[in-house]
């Protein structure tokens, strides 16, 4: 699809992910269909071949993630996407990619779980995404878009961050953002300075230095060294790459915190509360890993009352509690999937009033 970069387009969140990936230079996609993300493979199956790229509907999600590992080892930009059940199947491959320090982008458009769950909007893959998900102790970069524009922009960012840090990156979206359509500015790929692709498999008979892609570390002290190195990298990542959005926090006596689609609904609820004279603000983490801990710490030095809102029974709240000052309280309002409806701004406004009064 040819578009004038200055002209707004009207697309689904899932399509915006696919478009952002193409703009970022992604030319290989491997995936297996599952609601609510199938628009991503549908779009790429049509567009990638026209660009000389490769689209493969894999035999399974496990096949797809291992194709991503293989493609990444050749140095091309590649992506896979799925929803909860498929993302669970990909965990082994993600762990191997993390162990091999390979970049690559994984998109999770969350649906209800556990198990096969349902197709309702859910944010209950937070723990899985931010704790690594697979075995062995690792973290991946996790970006949480809350608009169709961010589906586009953060997918591009995921590719750059993943290359720079040699850590797999996940775009953690949900069915609301995936399925809704919005006006989007198809921004050009940012001019980021990228590292040389030292992770690429190489080494031939002619004496080219060898690079083997592996996650097996049997040498004496080799594995331990890897873990300390990665810890230092995660710490540096947290110093440099945290992203978040604050709304009216400077004088807030209650700070609502939420990510993704929930933050979007909460933002309108905060505006309603402000109109009613309630001093409330919003803190929306955009990077879920690294989590913007320092921002929470700074906010909680002044404001002692937080309200975490999630489409689950509470997962991100763990990170909020670990980040705020010890004398700050974090309350919770959860809407696990299955209610058949999303929380409305009016509903969250009621929760804000209730929590605001309770601590006033």
């Amino acid at each position: 699809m040819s578009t004038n970069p200055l002209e707004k387009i009207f697309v689904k969140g899932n399509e915006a992910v696919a478009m952002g990936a193409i703009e970022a230079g992604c030319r290989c996609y491997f995936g297996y269909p599952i609601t609510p993300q199938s628009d991503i493979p549908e779009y790429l199956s049509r567009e990638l071949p026209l660009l000389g790229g490769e689209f493969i509907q894999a035999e399974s999600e496990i096949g797809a993630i291992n194709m991503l590992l293989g493609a990444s080892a050749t140095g091309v930009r590649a992506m896979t996407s799925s929803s909860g059940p498929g993302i669970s199947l990909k965990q082994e491959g993600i762990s191997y990619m993390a162990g091999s320090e390979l970049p690559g982008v994984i998109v999770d458009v969350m649906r209800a779980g556990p198990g096969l769950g349902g197709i309702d909007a859910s944010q209950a893959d937070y723990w899985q995404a931010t704790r690594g998900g697979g075995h062995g102790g690792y973290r991946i970069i996790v970006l949480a878009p809350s608009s169709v524009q961010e589906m586009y922009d953060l997918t591009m960012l995921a590719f750059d961050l993943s290359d720079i840090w040699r850590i797999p990156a996940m775009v953690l979206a949900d069915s609301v953002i995936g399925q809704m359509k919005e006006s989007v500015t198809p921004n050009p790929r940012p001019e980021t300075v990228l590292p040389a692709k030292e992770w690429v498999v190489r080494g031939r008979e002619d004496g080219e230095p060898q690079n083997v892609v592996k996650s097996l570390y049997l040498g004496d002290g080799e594995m331990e060294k890897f873990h300390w190195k990665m810890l230092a990298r995660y710490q540096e990542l947290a110093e440099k790459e945290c992203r978040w959005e604050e709304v009216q926090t400077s004088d807030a006596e209650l700070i609502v915190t939420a990510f993704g689609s929930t933050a979007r609904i909460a933002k309108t609820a905060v505006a309603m509360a402000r109109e009613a004279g309630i001093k409330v603000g919003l803190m929306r983490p955009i990077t879920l890993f690294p989590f913007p801990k320092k921002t929470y710490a700074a906010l909680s030095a002044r404001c002692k009352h937080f309200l975490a809102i999630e489409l689950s029974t509470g997962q991100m709240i763990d990170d909020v509690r670990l980040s705020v000052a010890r004398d700050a309280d974090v309350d919770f309002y959860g809407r696990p999937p299955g209610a058949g409806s999303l929380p409305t701004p009016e509903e969250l406004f009621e929760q804000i009033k209730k929590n605001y009064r309770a601590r006033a």
Partner: protein
Amino acid sequence: MRHDVFFAGYGGQGVLLAGNLLSYAAIHEGKNVSFFPAYGVEKRGGSAMCTIVFADGDTGSPVVGNPSVSVLLNQLSFDKYAAKVKSGGICIVNSSLVDTSHIDLPGIEVILIPMNQIALDRGDVRMVNMVACGAYIEKSGALQRSSLEAALKKALPERNHKLIPANIQAMVAGAEASRG
């Protein structure tokens, strides 16, 4: 200025196309738009609904609990959603299919339009969504009809562009009917 409208009916009435059309029209007028659809797994006959928010600035929540305007095309959606319209808001109802007598809606302007009949009179009941769009822009004043005409070219596949004049006529008829 921020506008929100909720459309609901059963699958096949063109609820989602109507939402897409209004979205394209709002973009045509330089607005930011969010279009949030919800529908059943059925190809036809299930429930279909969508919320459209458009604004010069931030559209905010794509979900709206109490819409400023609701356009309800069948009995089920009227029974379920009419009372959610914001106080002082507008509820536009397809009176060809909906009996409104059993629900009292104080503080809401209820506009009854025999949309199926109007669409049929113009040749095809499938234009019921165009009649509804015409009524919406007339009552809300939120969008220009010329923007909807431009939007039809974007929202409809090219093979259906020959139907645009008839659809515009259906919109005009919907607008006229909403003036009473």
